[in-house]
């Protein structure tokens, strides 16, 4: 039996004003997996996520989610198909309260009672957020904002969660906490695409990995194999 992938990206190319940032990449993610996309700053990781979420139109290639072609689909329609993203730099709404930010995550849902239960779940996952529920999100620390962004994304009950550099700019202790939460989300059955510059952490947290270099995928394989691959170790693990 061959399972069909939850997300299939084929021949994807994206350009900014004529300059290609992504030059034709293929990858897929199967249900239940945690896959990581690692690469240096400027490799095109964020651009790949933007293309998947409809924030930039691809110039070539196709994107399928659960077999449906979502190439060039509008951003706002994708969350209804089970896709959620924690954007680079968290993207919390700074002048909304923490509660309102969390509520925005459930924008597409109408089941009040279930939403209330999920809010409770997010607050028990991140007790700091409960303490600051009525504070505006812009006043939170970087780590708290990251937790808020993750909690907000969970509120749509995504099947596939895209995370763009959740470790960026956070103190190591906080990074550990954030990654522990990501692992627990994965255990709950959410499929995850984790984009990271912190290759070591990302490879330890994921099942499979792709390495992106200047808009091309140069290495693909099991995360455990990449961790012991001398080339990867030299280029991305600082050895």
């Amino acid at each position: 039996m061959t399972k069909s992938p939850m997300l299939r990206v084929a021949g994807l190319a994206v350009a900014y004003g004529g300059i290609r940032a992504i030059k034709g990449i293929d990858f897929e993610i199967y249900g239940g997996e945690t896959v990581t996309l690692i690469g240096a700053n400027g490799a095109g990781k964020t651009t790949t996520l933007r293309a998947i979420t409809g924030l930039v139109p691809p110039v070539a290639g196709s994107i399928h989610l659960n077999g449906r072609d979502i190439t060039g689909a509008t951003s706002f329609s994708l969350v209804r198909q089970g896709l959620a993203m924690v954007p680079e730099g968290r993207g919390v709404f700074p002048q909304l309260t923490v509660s309102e930010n969390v509520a925005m995550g459930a924008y597409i849902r109408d089941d009040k009672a279930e939403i209330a239960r999920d809010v409770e779940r997010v607050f028990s996952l991140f007790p700091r957020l409960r303490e600051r529920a009525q504070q505006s999100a812009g006043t939170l620390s970087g780590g708290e904002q990251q937790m808020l962004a993750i909690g907000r994304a969970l509120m749509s009950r995504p099947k596939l969660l895209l995370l763009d550099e959740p470790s960026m700019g956070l103190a190591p202790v906080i990074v550990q906490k954030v990654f522990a939460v990501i692992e627990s989300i994965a255990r709950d059955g959410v499929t995850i695409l984790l984009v990271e510059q912190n290759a070591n952490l990302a490879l330890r947290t994921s099942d499979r990995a792709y390495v992106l270099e200047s808009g091309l995928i140069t290495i693909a394989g099991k995360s455990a194999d990449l961790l012991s691959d001398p080339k990867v170790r030299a280029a991305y693990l600082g050895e």
Partner: protein
Amino acid sequence: METFLQQLFNGLTLGAVYAVVALGYTMVYGIIQLINFAHGEVVMIGAMVAFTIITLLANSGLPPVAIVLIGTSCAIPVCMIVGYALERIAYRPLRNAPRLAPLITAIGMSIVLQHVAMMVWSRNNLAFPQIIKTETYDIAGASVTNIQIVIVILCLVLMGGLLWLVHRTRLGISMRATAQNPRVAGLMGVNINREIAITFAIGAALGAVAGVMVGSYYGIAHYQMGALLGLKAFCAAVLGGIGNVPGAMVGGLLLGVIEALGAGYIGDLTDLCAVPWLFAGLAARCAAGEHISLFGSNYQDVFAFLVLIAVLVLRPSGLLGERVGDRA
């Protein structure tokens, strides 16, 4: 003291109207950083539509309040359609253009709307039928009319309603989210185009009511009435902090009061008899009991722009505005 109280009441009436109009500017600016210079013309069209309906029904035997209500409820949807059409036809195609392009388009749209109104309603002053009898009350020596009281109360209700909408409803929260980060709001499932269109429509609906109020207050409507009113309301929005909803309310009320007090006292402030040595013959004329001032209350309109200049120089983010640009 009587002048003060009188001008305070007049200022609050005018200011309440400015505030409601300013909301239209500030809401649109908040969500797409566009100064919709055609908003004053939307207000004018509200007044014009109400004028037509009220004139038609003036002798129908319906109770006056009902006639005004019918006029207003016709003006609101017409203005909402105009506001929506502006966004759809003129601004949306320029959403990603350099900022000067939509700004110039907005000025162009205001000219277009003025001239359409001129063709439909003529270039004359149109007298609003005075179907509601004006009653005047005496409050500590100042006189206040029933129309003034209704205007102020109605404006406060509209502002309260808008605050409730923006802070307590899902639509309001998603509108604020879109204003703060449209891309991320889109990721949450918010249809940004719809959100922007709704913002224009709400601003236009408020403008329609303001138009009816101005028309009834001054008793006339004119195809150019929106230009100065719009500009002043824009000043009020900047005073409060453009993009900030409570700011527009505070800015509008404050501007109205400043303007009215300014007009009330400008004669005294520029009283040349205080400096009788300034030119020959002045002392004699003052002694004969003549009042000679440099500026009269017809300079009232200057104050809005003085306020605008002062705000831009001293506090560009406005009274309640947050500094723009420190959010990436």
